[in-house]
């Protein structure tokens, strides 16, 4: 980090964050996913809670291997759907930084702003850090804010069950405050690396967006009953992501080379 100046990295963060705040289309895109990821599980929970004594709920609970009575089937299914939904929720901390970083990194080429930026005293690493902060801070903030909204909505909807608060629970707290930032880091690094290669924000978004598909597959496996979610699974996921993130940072640093940026993008 010799020669690294935080004031320059923070200047890049300030500019990108300011630009993001003024980019209405991008803000709407960013808001859509959290809205869906909060409203949909609340709707599913509402469906279970609406008629908790429906005998079909017990059949569904039995499918997942639960030996619960009819009185507890609804609560079991609420917990189950929220556990499984967490994997889908992780799409948000991956996808939002992809939206922001693709725009912030490859967008510099499209706007022809990269050369003047590189002509300033800022170093490639400072640009990388500033842009990553401008992507990670809003992404993690949105993720936490959406979680707060999810907690409120789920607890309101599930209140008639009479079992107290459903959320937050240990898995979700660990997931939102530990796993989600690691996934946000992953999404940002993937977007930066792909942007450094393709230099076109839409293509970068599309390619980076493919990286959420394994999460969809995992969630599908959970809903089908083949995979089991929970705190332990989240901890394993976190450990894997630490390794992946460290590797991606090394790749991103190598690709975010001043000359490569200028000759490929400038």
């Amino acid at each position: 980090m010799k020669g690294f100046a935080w004031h320059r990295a923070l200047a890049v963060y300030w500019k990108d964050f300011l630009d993001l705040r003024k980019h209405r289309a991008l803000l709407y895109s960013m808001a859509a996913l959290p809205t869906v990821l909060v409203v949909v599980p609340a709707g599913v929970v509402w469906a279970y809670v609406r008629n908790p004594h429906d005998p079909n709920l017990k059949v569904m609970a039995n499918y997942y291997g639960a030996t619960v009575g009819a009185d507890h089937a609804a609560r079991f299914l609420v917990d189950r759907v929220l556990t499984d939904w967490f994997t889908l929720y992780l799409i948000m901390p991956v996808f939002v930084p992809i939206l922001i970083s693709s725009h912030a990194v490859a967008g510099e080429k499209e706007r022809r702003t990269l050369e003047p930026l590189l002509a300033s005293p800022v170093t490639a690493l400072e640009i990388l850090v500033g842009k990553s902060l401008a992507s990670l801070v809003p992404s993690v903030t949105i993720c936490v804010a959406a979680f707060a909204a999810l907690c409120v909505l789920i607890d309101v909807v599930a209140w008639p069950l009479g079992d107290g608060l459903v959320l937050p629970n240990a898995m979700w707290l660990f997931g939102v405050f530990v796993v989600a930032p690691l996934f946000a880091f992953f999404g940002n690094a993937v977007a930066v690396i792909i942007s450094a290669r393709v230099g076109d924000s839409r293509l970068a978004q599309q390619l980076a967006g493919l990286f959420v598909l394994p999460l969809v597959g995992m969630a599908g496996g959970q809903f089908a009953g083949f995979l089991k979610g929970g705190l332990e699974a989240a901890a394993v996921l976190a450990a894997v992501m630490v390794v992946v993130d460290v590797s991606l940072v090394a790749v991103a640093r190598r690709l975010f080379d001043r000359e490569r940026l200028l000759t490929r993008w400038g």
Partner: protein
Amino acid sequence: MPTVAVSGLKRVFGERVAVEGLSFEVEPGEVFGLLGPNGAGKTTTVRMLAGLLPPSGGTATVCGERVPVDGDGVALRSKVGLLTEQPGLYDRLTAHENLLFALKLHGVDLVAGWALALRYLARFGLKGREHEPVGAFSKGMRQKLAIVRALVHQPQLLFLDEPTSGLDPESARTVRDAIAELAAEGRTIVLCSHNLSEVERLCTRVAVIKNRLRTVARLGDLRREGMTLELLLDGEAQAFVAAAQALPFKPTALAEGRLLKVLLDDPATAPDVLRAVVLAGARVHQAQRAARPLEEAYLELVRESPGEAA
């Protein structure tokens, strides 16, 4: 001590030699032109001298800093300002925010830096527009704002890469006026251009490059190397172009209505041209010598030799 001293600078991209064999100096307070056609290596040269690209060979000293730079080149880039061919401004940000970003990157005191920026904005006719998004600016306004951005950290040397490229005549003129004002206050400027009238108006000396250095000269010296013999004839001059060009020293002849222009390397050959044209049947009403236009000198310098054409 020159502000810029270049010695044998070279840059290759893969197999392609973008520029090589560059050697020239730029004195403090000078407006120096880098002339050359598209793809001649002007932008690559500026990028090397501004610390954006490392050279593949040769060395340079810019504002006391060595090129290739040691480390990440922060010291060099702090001392120079660069106006790129495209203004490269952030459209959603206001002029004020664009300039504030530049000040923050350069670590300049924001209050003092903004006060200086306001003075430049006023000088370039942009005062009062500083809180408007740059996306609403005309091309000329954007280019002038980009010049202000290149100046706000008080660089010792200003690189202007094709500053009027793509601008309409009115915008180009306002930008040229702005550059002329900076030159008048004694700034050291390296101006990259293929616009000869712009270079004639602003520069004192030029380096003509086309992937390698063709010449470094004062503009006046460049024009004086050779002369033009202008003959006003009775009828269309086109009929006598062949007669002039048939002379053993093969001069270039151009016809403009009744005016026959013959470009001569050696002024002593003027009587031979006059005689050849008269013998071909021309009635000459007037004959005069003129300095060779810069355009002719430039075209001759960048004309490809048979070996280069391959």
